[in-house]
């Protein structure tokens, strides 16, 4: 005979106000199998848990039902309490009589009846529960970080410094990301490269970091603690082990007119190039679309000049497999494009700003390169059209952000700050120039942030206009900017030499494909989904995969770095044990009756089921069967729904249990 203990929580007044908990206890106490049925004010408290432990021991309970709040809140608490009293944790069930009952109903009598039903269901379930043990999974104590921007660099360094090996995969020829291209960072106006490059060098020289640049993740197999990732190392045409970075090759390269990606198309580079002098690795790559030898079979000057003989025109992409236990995604962002061509119908370019056809209308990243001392103009502020010094610059905020009609609905968070920064950097270089900023709101909610914006207005005399710009047209070499100042209640027209648009922050290209490979979710904008927006910002719903930086949502450098360290900490938590425990509520196949139709294999969203064979001692095939990999299974139950032979069941939520719950209500 079963010995079930039922514990009903008052939760102060939260439950007791709308549910007569004593009545529930009384009614439930008469159910067959229920040994004791008590109430308590706050079961989650220490004395509450002590009560449960006491009763388990005194009454020799072999199952527990706690009728209280949502299992999301305290299932773990009660399971741990039971475990500590010697009862298997998975013989504990909860009935949610708070969120599902007292919080949503007003009629006390009816709510009490419903609470009794809910507890009855939980009793029916726990009567059929089995003791389960957490699934132990080995863990490979190596991590992969995808993306070598400031977030990826920080995460890699933290994990590597803790003594674990890290594989850092970066798509561009060098690590550094967008931060390497910035001029100065707010609010300190530190030189961006000066603070980043030491970290980059550390990554390049770290004994625990394997750096794959000019590489992308091709495929991912495996599960928490046991990932197998194949990486495509794109052909560089330069052997970085032989190359000594002398630069003879790019000095002689005749293919000069290639838009530099690092300069966001504000400058040119050669076909063989290092994206910027402080690149890590400081070794060139050959752009195979721009190289005359690779496209037309002529030239090859670089090869002739290269003393160590590092140029190899026969280079091919290479596939490398890395085995890691955890993956951190740090793929960063790209700016919104105001041009006419857009990737999907929800977005449309800004025709009123000229659809990216005015040479002197640029975006914020392009302005960073113009202002940067290592940029294509040597730090001199010049108009792209004629190289002249702009005396009037207009900065426009919220281009593409907060725009339901043609852009993205969210705020990109950093633009108010960097626009103030741009206005300041401009004024510091062009003393007789005037910066105008058109804004809707000022978002400057960090440490010293608002003071920074005030400095731009008060010390550097930036003219801030509260209002949008409705149209930009080009007349006689000037840009006519028509906007409004709603605080004054007047339209404002400015003849500008240069216009800088604060374009929205979007996740980098290819992030959706990468997310699918790793089973990570993403929102409608492509930002990767964290497990919980408040309490679990760097974990994802894919066990063992973490996110940090702008790929998870718009943020500035301090936040990206903080998230990176957080993700690294999570990885170190994983690696601190030799085995990882997973919840045992996973699917299990009764291999004897499985018909091997493999519908479940095709349906499983986590590719957790494989086709297996049962062979006898003589290695003769007895039968085929589906087999669940308990390391990958997330317990969603889809396989149960599609199995025609009913040979698959979900531990902790068996068919028997579910039917019993339903029948208990009838």
């Amino acid at each position, binding site marked *: 005979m079963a010995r079930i203990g039922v514990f009903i929580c008052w939760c102060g007044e939260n439950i007791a106000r709308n549910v007569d908990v004593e009545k529930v206890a009384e009614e439930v106490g008469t159910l067959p199998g229920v040994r004791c049925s008590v109430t308590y004010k706050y079961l989650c408290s220490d004395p509450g848990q002590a009560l449960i432990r006491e009763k388990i021991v005194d009454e020799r309970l072999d199952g527990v039902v706690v009728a209280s709040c949502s299992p999301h809140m305290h299932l773990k608490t009660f399971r741990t309490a039971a475990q500590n009293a010697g009862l298997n944790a998975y013989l504990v069930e909860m009935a949610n009589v708070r969120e599902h009952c007292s919080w949503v109903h007003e009629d006390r009598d009816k709510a009490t009846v419903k609470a009794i039903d809910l507890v009855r269901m939980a009793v029916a379930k726990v009567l059929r529960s089995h003791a389960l043990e957490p699934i132990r999974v080995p863990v490979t104590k190596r991590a992969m970080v995808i993306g070598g921007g400031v977030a990826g660099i920080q995460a890699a360094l933290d994990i590597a410094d803790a003594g674990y090996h890290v594989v850092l995969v970066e798509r561009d020829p060098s690590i550094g990301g967008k931060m390497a291209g910035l001029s100065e960072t707010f609010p300190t106006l530190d030189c961006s490269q000066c603070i980043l490059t030491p970290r980059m060098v550390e990554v390049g020289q770290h004994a625990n970091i394997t750096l794959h640049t000019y590489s992308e993740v091709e495929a991912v197999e495996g599960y928490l603690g046991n990932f197998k990732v194949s990486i495509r190392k794109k052909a560089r045409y330069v052997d970085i082990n032989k190359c000594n970075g002398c630069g003879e090759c790019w000095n002689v390269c005749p293919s000069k007119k290639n838009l530099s990606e690092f300069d966001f198309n504000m400058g040119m580079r050669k076909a063989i190039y290092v994206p910027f002098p402080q690149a890590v690795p400081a070794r060139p790559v050959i752009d195979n679309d721009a190289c005359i030898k690779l496209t037309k079979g002529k030239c090859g000057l670089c090869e002739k000049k290269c003393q160590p003989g590092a140029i190899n025109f026969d280079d091919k992409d290479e596939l490398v497999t890395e085995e890691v236990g955890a993956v951190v995604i740090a793929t960063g962002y790209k700016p919104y494009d105001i041009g006419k061509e857009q990737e999907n119908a929800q977005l449309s370019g800004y025709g*009123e700003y000229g659809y990216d056809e005015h040479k002197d209308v640029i975006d914020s990243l392009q302005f960073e390169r113009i202002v940067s001392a290592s940029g294509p103009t040597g730090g001199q502020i010049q108009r792209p059209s004629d190289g002249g010094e702009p005396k009037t610059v207009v900065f426009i905020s*919220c281009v593409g952000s907060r725009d*339901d*009609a043609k852009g993205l609905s969210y705020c990109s968070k950093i633009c108010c700050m960097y626009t103030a920064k741009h206005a300041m950097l401009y004024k510091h270089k062009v003393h007789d120039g005037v910066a105008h900023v058109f804004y809707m709101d000022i978002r400057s909610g960090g440490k010293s942030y608002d003071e920074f914006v005030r400095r731009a207005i008060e010390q550097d005399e930036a003219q801030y206009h509260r209002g*949008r710009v*409705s149209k930009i047209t080009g007349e006689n070499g000037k840009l006519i900017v028509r906007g*409004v100042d*709603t605080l004054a209640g007047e*339209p404002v027209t400015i003849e500008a030499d240069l216009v800088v648009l604060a374009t929205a922050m979007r996740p980098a290209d290819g992030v959706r494909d990468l997310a699918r490979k790793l089973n990570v979710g993403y929102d409608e904008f492509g930002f990767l989904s964290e497990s919980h927006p408040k309490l679990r910002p760097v974990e994802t719903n894919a066990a063992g995969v973490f996110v940090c930086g702008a790929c998870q949502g718009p943020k500035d450098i301090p936040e990206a770095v903080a998230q990176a360290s957080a993700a690294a900490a999570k990885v170190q938590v994983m690696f601190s044990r030799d085995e990882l425990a997973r919840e045992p509520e996973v699917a299990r196949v009764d291999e004897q009756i499985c018909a091997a139709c493999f519908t479940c294999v095709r349906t499983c969203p986590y590719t957790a089921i494989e086709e297996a064979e049962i062979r006898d001692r003589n290695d003769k095939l007895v039968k085929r069967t589906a087999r669940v990999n308990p390391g990958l299974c997330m317990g969603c139950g889809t396989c149960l729904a599609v199995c025609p032979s009913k040979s698959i069941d979900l531990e902790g939520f068996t068919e028997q249990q579910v039917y019993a719950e339903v029948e208990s209500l009838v």
Partner: protein
Amino acid sequence: MAEYMDVLPNQLIRLVQLDRADKAMKADAVWQCVSCLTCSTRCPKSVDCAGVIDALRQLSVEYEVASPRQRRTVLFQKAFLQNIRRHGRLNELELIAVFKTRSFIKDLDIPFLFKDSMLAPKMIKRRKFHLTGESVEDRGVVDRIFERCMSA
């Protein structure tokens, strides 16, 4: 048109949001708007700004609080509608005559009364001047349509 307006379009919308449509409908701006629809097209929240201004126009006439400085515009539009109601199609000469006369009665502005009269011979020469306009055969249905819409 914003440079001529006493209250900017975004302020009109704000007044309506604050339940102060009574103030908004008295603005000159409401009748200065030419319905170019640029506002609704550019709005990032897809607010039909021009539609709100149309509604304010309608209300300003209903409550008889349309700005006196915009009297001519209001007179013109009212005369236009009356004209169509009568004939089903616009009779330009009749409209101009009615509009100019009613304008004159209100403001006794003689130059305005005769201002466009020099246009008449030029239009006649170009066969753009019609002494009478067209009418539809079934004028009754037009009148009934008007009646149903304006009495609701």
